[in-house]
């Protein structure tokens, strides 16, 4: 018996549906090009080493205007003749090289520097007829094509200023495969320190977020809260981090507790407080991430059947005993899950360590500094990015495949009935007060930001003024808002549609490579923004595979939009998948059976049924994009001003007033977006989502 016939027929039917085939092909290309390819380039860069051999070039100082010289002083090689540079190793350790110049040497970058030296320089070259000639270096820049492997090192040329040009040196690049980079960075103090810092930070943030999140979830689900205000406060606190850009808390931390902090200096009179460093980041990250834990655990606690705990109580266990012997063990996989989610978030976080980290560098910031700083160590940065990637991937795999399954296994199904809430004052008061305290603190932190923008000079002069807003708009504020807004608004529909298509294909269709699509779109969830940013630099700055193809998108808005799309795709896809699983497959089959092709089925049946998910994907992408920083900060060029990068810039310069002005408006924009979403979902959302029936 063989399935060959049905396989052949299925293939025929599949290819009889061109809309779907084209969609899948485009999807594959997109995912491969913008997720798999940049990440694999990182891997390549970490093991493919460019060696730099030093050669000196026969080059002479002179004053003639002419371009080519032979040894006799005649004009050299005719048009299009092949010419070579004679390269000799100064210490004699390397054999002489004839570098084919293709009418260029790659030394063009040296031109400006050499002109500064005051004299014209000539490069001794040998043409294909073995005649030597001298090329005036001043003309080399006119030649466009640069042989890839022969590139001059700018710095060495710069060192030549005013020196005898006869010793002009070039570095000849060649590539070789090696695993040396990893031992090298593992011996590198900066890297080791950053790795240690990252892990410590992840652990501490994970732990504290877990504790606070658990406290909030427990109080919310188990304890009777009388006042409506505190309920409302819980909601606000759990929503704030979603609305706010990632580094807002860092800003307010500095404003409130920094050296000129409102609380430290004004209220407590401490003049030497130092928020920069590990504890600063831990506090800020904990306050940013604990709401995620709170929401996760709240869902789990609600699923615990109260009768189990009542049974334990009935057998004589105290409330604390019930918590430690029943509730906690049931929650254990869920707790582990929440811890890892926070850990990954913390490890991938770029903005907070950047702003409040001080000298406490994490992997994300170290990679950023390696690339943007003076030491342009691309191999090192790539290797570090690979380490960071594998770290998060590993955690992600454990979380996804071990803990999530276990959580579902222990806590599935619904509670059989309503839980008796704890009325006991000795439990209620301390827990509620603790939660209220933390909530109030979080709210205070957020309130500090707009005031930071409104006070004349934080720490000195607390009178209201619009000077920071004025400065913001004077220094490119409008452009920043326009650019950020425009790029995010372009990314939103693309992401929303793409993630709905991916979910549709993953849930409803059968084809080869479906697993790959699912895996890659999930992978993007585990990739830290910094890693993706480095991957894009390495993958696209020289075009695809350094061939120059698609190089034109590098440095444009398109690449920023693509990054936004890639960063938000997993979130949209996840919500799309869960929405689609709710829809009976025969609804689509029936449309298909009536004569609609895949494209028509998707547009006329599937999409309308999951339009809530589509719409929330739209807004989520917008919010995530406009507040994104980690990946785009590596890719943004002066052509585009992004709000988040501006905030980072001003915060680095210590101009917190302007940073706060930007952040205030950014929060307002994102909050408005979410508000609009809620209104639209409320009035136009469907409650008629079809549930699977029968079977």
């Amino acid at each position, binding site marked *: 018996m063989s399935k060959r016939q049905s396989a052949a*027929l299925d293939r025929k*039917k599949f290819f009889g549906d061109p809309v779907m085939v084209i969609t899948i092909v485009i999807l594959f290309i997109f995912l491969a090009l913008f997720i798999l390819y940049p990440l694999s380039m990182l891997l390549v860069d970490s093991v493919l080493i460019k060696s730099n051999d030093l050669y000196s070039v026969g080059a002479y100082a002179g004053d003639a205007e002419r371009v080519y010289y032979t040894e006799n002083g005649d004009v050299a090689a005719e048009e299009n003749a092949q010419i070579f540079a004679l390269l000799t190793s100064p210490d004699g350790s390397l054999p002489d090289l004839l570098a084919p110049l293709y009418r260029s040497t790659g030394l063009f970058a040296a031109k400006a520097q050499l002109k500064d030296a005051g004299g014209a320089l000539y490069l001794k070259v040998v043409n294909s007829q073995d005649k030597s000639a001298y090329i005036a270096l001043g003309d080399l820049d006119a030649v466009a094509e640069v042989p890839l492997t022969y590139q001059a090192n700018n710095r060495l040329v710069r060192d030549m200023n005013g020196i005898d040009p006869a010793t002009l040196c070039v570095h000849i690049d060649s590539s070789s495969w090696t695993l040396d980079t990893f031992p090298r960075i593992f011996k590198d103090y900066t890297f080791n320190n950053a790795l240690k810092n990252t892990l410590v930070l992840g652990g501490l943030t994970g732990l504290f977020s877990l504790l606070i999140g658990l406290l909030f979830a427990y109080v919310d689900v188990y304890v009777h809260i009388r006042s409506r205000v505190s309920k409302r406060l819980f909601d606000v606190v759990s929503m704030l981090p979603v609305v706010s850009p990632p580094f807002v808390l860092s800003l307010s931390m500095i404003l409130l507790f920094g050296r000129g902090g409102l609380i430290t200096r004004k209220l407590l009179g401490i003049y030497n407080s130092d928020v920069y460093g590990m504890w600063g980041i831990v506090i800020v990250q904990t306050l940013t991430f604990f709401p995620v834990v709170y929401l996760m655990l709240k869902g789990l606690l609600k699923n615990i059947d109260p009768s189990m705990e009542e049974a334990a109580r009935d057998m004589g266990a105290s409330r604390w005993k019930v918590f430690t012997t029943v509730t906690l063990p049931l929650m254990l996989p869920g707790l582990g899950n929440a811890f890892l989610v926070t850990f990954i978030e913390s490890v991938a976080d770029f903005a907070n360590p950047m702003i409040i980290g001080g000298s406490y560098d994490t992997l994300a910031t170290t990679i950023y500094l390696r690339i943007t700083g003076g030491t342009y160590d691309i191999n090192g940065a790539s290797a570090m990015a690979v380490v960071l990637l594998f770290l998060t991937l590993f955690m992600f795999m454990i979380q996804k495949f071990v803990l999530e399954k276990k959580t579902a296994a222990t806590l599935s199904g619904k509670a059989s009935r309503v839980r008796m809430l704890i009325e006991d004052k000795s439990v209620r008061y301390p827990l509620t007060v603790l939660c209220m305290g933390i909530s109030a603190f979080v709210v205070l932190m957020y309130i500090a930001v707009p005031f930071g923008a409104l006070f004349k000079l934080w720490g000195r002069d607390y009178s209201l003024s619009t000077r920071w807003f004025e400065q913001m708009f004077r220094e490119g504020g409008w452009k920043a808002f326009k650019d950020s807004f425009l790029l995010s608004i372009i990314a939103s529909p693309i992401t929303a549609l793409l993630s709905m298509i991916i979910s549709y294909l993953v849930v409803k269709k059968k084809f080869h490579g479906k697993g790959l699509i699912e895996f890659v779109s999930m992978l993007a969830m585990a990739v830290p923004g910094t890693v993706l940013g480095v991957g894009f630099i390495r993958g696209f700055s020289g075009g695809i595979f350094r061939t120059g193809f698609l190089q034109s998108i590098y440095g444009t808005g398109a690449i920023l939009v693509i990054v936004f799309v890639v960063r938000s795709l997993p979130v949209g896809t996840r919500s799309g998948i869960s929405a689609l699983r709710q829809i009976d497959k025969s*609804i689509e089959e029936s449309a*298909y*059976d*009536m004569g609609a092709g895949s494209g028509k089925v998707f547009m006329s*049946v599937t999409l309308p049924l999951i339009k809530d998910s589509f719409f929330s994907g739209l807004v989520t992408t917008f919010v995530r994009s406009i507040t994104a920083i980690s990946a785009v900060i590596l890719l943004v060029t002066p052509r585009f001003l992004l709000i988040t990068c501006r905030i980072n810039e001003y915060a680095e310069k210590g101009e917190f007033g302007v940073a706060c002005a930007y952040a205030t408006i950014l929060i307002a924009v994102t909050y408005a977006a979410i508000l609009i979403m809620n209104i639209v979902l409320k009035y136009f959302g469907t409650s*008629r989502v079809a549930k699977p029936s029968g079977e």
Partner: protein
Amino acid sequence: MAVQNKVPKGVKLDHISKIYKDPKTGKDFYAVHDVALDIAPGSFVTLLGPSGCGKTTTLRMIAGFESPDEGEIYLGGEAINALTPNKRDTAMVFQSYALFPHYNVFDNVAYGLRLRKVPKDEITRRVTAILKLVELSGMEQRMTNQLSGGQQQRVALARALVVEPGVLLFDEPLSNLDAKLRVQMRTEIRRIQQALGITAIYVTHDQSEAMSISDQIILMKGGVIAQMGSPMEIYYHPVSEFVADFIGECNFLKGQVVSSSGGTTVIQLPAGKAAVSTDKVSTPGEEAEIVVRPEAITIAETGMLPCKVELSCFMGSYQNYHVRVGDTLVKITDNCPVNRRIFSVGEEAYISFDAACAHLL
């Protein structure tokens, strides 16, 4: 009513098979094996069988959702194996109705016509006519979630009918309705099918539904056809114990052939002799099994075979007996027993049945 303008098509399954992989063992097995069928245009054929017998898979192969591993499917004489569902001249009524929840009744029914780019006024005319046929006139603007189960069922039927398919497919369409509505709807479906003269293939596991609705029943088991024929053939002349048992209740009496001539075969049972009318000629001494329906047996103080009553239960319209004949348990439904003697548990009695009502396996 001139709703259906097209000529119905016949369906031919030319020895089709479908292979699936067992998710537990990882081994391939035949979900449908060598099913050969020739369905005449305009007839109502039911695929009947227990769950897992391959009936739904067969239907989905005809619709095009699954591809056969062996054999070819013909619709109106045209081989359609390689056609996608949307290119096939079929329309399916789903178990879950599969109505589009974001459309109202009219738009649901009009969906297929709009895909076919039918002019607007013709759509209105045809949808109105078909809604009248399924007795849903005036409900055009209702959303589907405002309809009862039976009404949703009618919309699903109308949606499939309105495109005038060459063949109409039903995948257990009534299993989500309550018992009373089920009976009503099946009569309705049969009425509409007859009115339009459309070819229909109907999948169900409910034997009474199959009996009442079909021109022909194809009983399946384990992926193969166990028997096909008219409801009456299948009921009175089952070819196997499985068929006999699946279609209604049945008693099996084992014995040896004593004589076989002139259309009557006499069987020696442990408790006595019994005659069966059959075309089959058997040699004396051969093992044989008599199949006889519970309602074909009478119980009295005298008769063919002695028995002992083990259960006697009043069911309203009939008296239900379980009696022991030799070692065999025999079920009897005695209709309208009021004027006859009712036997109680433990009593000795005799059973008899007419030779024409029994059947020999």
